[in-house]
């Protein structure tokens, strides 16, 4: 159980508070942030805590008094699940999120989740080591990307959900798209992603994924980037050419961190609704056929 007060009481320097808050921001749910805020009177919180909470509230205005109903489950240090237990899976979509090098989706996790309706989504958040690669798997869970896909299927039963979407940002972005192809998801979304240099024959490498993507029916691949940021634009266009997916430039964004730019504008909720929505309803039988076509292995 999160005991913020005790952990904050042990902090003596700004850097120690920053360490605490950075680590929490990668994992806590909106409800946990609200609970931290409400556990003590405002004046009894350390100044550094108040600054942090105020910053989170600025990012996600409703987080303190109307937090999204996600309950966080710790599957492992590298796998978190955020689920609203009041809504059955059959009425929701499953988002499999491949976080980037910082263990984030470009912004603090509670701010991201606050912009995603917990009545519509269950989120599985995957993490890797900063210098690691999803193509070498996740420690303690899988040794390669197909293994991650198999783990997600065995552990979270995507077939229970109306839709399955993968999303990755930065260092997790291409892996999310590759996973979407391998698992026959409804949609795979890359934000600022680029295919890593992988040894020939590595599962999930671009030639393999591009070939399979063009044979798939029903998996949308979307490559999101800041419209004024040439490195990500060029990569997205190349991925579109290779896979037959679609690009999604975000207007007036001149940097890599698209999610933060959209958050700062107050547009994250409609942005996510647009890029994550699927325009097809997934059927269980069609999913199984896709798996056969993609040669997905357990």
């Amino acid at each position: 159980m999160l005991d913020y007060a005790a952990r904050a009481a042990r902090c003596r320097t700004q850097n120690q508070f920053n360490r605490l808050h950075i680590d929490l921001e990668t994992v806590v749910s909106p409800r946990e942030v609200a609970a931290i805020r409400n556990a003590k009177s405002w004046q009894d919180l350390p100044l550094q805590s108040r600054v942090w909470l105020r910053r989170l509230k600025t990012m996600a205005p409703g987080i303190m008094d109307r937090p999204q109903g996600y309950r966080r489950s710790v599957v492992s240090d590298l796998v978190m699940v955020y689920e609203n237990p009041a809504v059955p899976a059959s009425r929701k979509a499953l988002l499999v999120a491949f976080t980037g090098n910082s263990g984030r989706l470009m912004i603090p996790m509670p701010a991201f989740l606050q912009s995603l309706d917990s009545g519509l989504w269950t989120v599985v958040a995957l993490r890797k080591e900063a210098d690691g690669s999803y193509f070498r798997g996740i420690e303690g869970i899988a040794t390669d990307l197909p293994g991650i896909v198999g783990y997600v299927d065995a552990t979270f039963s995507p077939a229970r959900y109306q839709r399955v979407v993968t999303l990755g940002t930065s260092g997790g972005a291409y892996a999310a798209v590759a996973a979407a192809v391998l698992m026959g998801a409804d949609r795979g979304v890359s934000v600022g992603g680029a295919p890593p240099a992988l040894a020939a024959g590595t599962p999930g490498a671009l030639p393999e994924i591009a070939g399979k993507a063009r044979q798939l029916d029903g998996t949308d691949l979307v490559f999101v980037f800041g419209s004024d940021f040439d490195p990500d634009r060029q990569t997205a266009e190349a991925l579109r050419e290779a896979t037959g997916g679609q690009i999604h430039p975000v207007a007036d964004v001149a940097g890599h961190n698209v999610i933060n730019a959209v958050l700062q504008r107050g547009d994250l909720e409609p942005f996510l609704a647009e890029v994550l929505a699927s325009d097809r309803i997934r059927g269980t039988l069609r999913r199984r056929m896709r798996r056969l076509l993609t040669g997905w292995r357990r």
Partner: protein
Amino acid sequence: MTDKIRDILNTALQAGRNGTRWPADIAEAIADNDRDVALDRLGFDSLGWMEFCISVELQSGLELTPNDIDTMRDLAQIDAWLRARL
């Protein structure tokens, strides 16, 4: 510049980089311990600078903060800050 300060800086730079790649010229400059590298060329966001400062404090016990970084231009100034206190 002592070896200890070089090691602290290099370790902290890796912490701030957090797995992202530098342009080749920056990577080469850092590998060569060139301290005339402007801080804005490192490409660190606010999170990166927090990780950098946390690493410095963990290694040295010195409380360099992102607010301190805001007053500096290049790695040489961070190096000088450390040397003055170690």
